[in-house]
């Protein structure tokens, strides 16, 4: 017998909504976003793509021109926090600009991870302006083959 648990119900509702929203993505296909204009508005930066396989969860962040030394990643309570700084162009006076579309500045973003991860073995790779964080799933979150005995 299970007892009705309001929190479990809310959690289930949230997941259901998340699922519905993420499902509707390909149907209501927006213009592709490569917008990374921090400081141009309160938009999330960097944009991230989440993927997974049996062993790992991958978080890929679109962050060109970020100083790799300024990047700071931390995993806590099922969430990955990415901090860093995209340095601006030094010593360019405002009158010298013909176009100024690339914004710069410090950023912080927290991404909720779908499963429990082993925080001790997280690795990250910054290449060509893309940050790929590999988060190994914890033992409990990995799929396990159940042997079936045939009689």
């Amino acid at each position, binding site marked *: 017998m299970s007892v009705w648990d309001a929190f479990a119900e809310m959690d289930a509702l949230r997941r259901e909504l998340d699922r519905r929203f*993420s499902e509707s*993505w390909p149907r209501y296909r927006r*213009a*592709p*976003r*490569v917008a*990374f*204009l921090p400081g141009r508005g309160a938009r*999330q930066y960097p*944009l*991230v*793509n*989440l*993927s*997974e*396989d049996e062993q*790992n*969860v*991958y978080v*890929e962040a*679109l*962050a*060109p*021109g*970020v100083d*790799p030394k300024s990047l700071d990643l931390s995993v806590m309570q099922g969430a990955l926090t990415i901090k860093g700084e995209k340095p601006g*162009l030094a010593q*360019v006076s405002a009158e*010298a*600009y*013909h*176009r*100024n*579309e*690339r914004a710069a500045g410090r950023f912080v973003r927290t991404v909720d991870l*779908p499963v429990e991860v082993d925080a001790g073995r997280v690795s990250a790779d*910054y290449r*060509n*302006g*893309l940050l*790929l964080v590999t988060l190994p799933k914890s033992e409990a979150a990995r799929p396990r083959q159940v042997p079936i005995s045939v009689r």
Partner: protein
Amino acid sequence: MAEKTVPSVQEDWAPGRREETREHDRYITPPVDIFETKDGLTVVADLPGVEQKGLDVRVADGILTLQGRTAHLAPGTPIEREYELLHFYRQFELPEEVDAEKIAAELKHGVLTLRLPKKEKAKPRKIEVSVS
């Protein structure tokens, strides 16, 4: 430094489109900074996911074309996607005083920096005045 708009009709402009061609790939315009110094112009473009071999920068008929092809496959099956890594394409009309022979390009951390020096005669020259 005026931008060369590739499709002459601007109305149904969407960042994912270049122009109607038989090419199936989709393109977006990368954000750029352009600023002027006394020696020339500097163009800085964000091209995440573009490697050196996928980058094509050329000048023809006074038009600078930036084309970056992203070759990239994220591991695993996608859970959530906030962006698509498409190819980049953008054109600019260069002013006449740019010396196309001396353009220098550098790609670092997904950011392309182009230095377009001015021709010698276009640079301001200080004329020494001798007092006799």
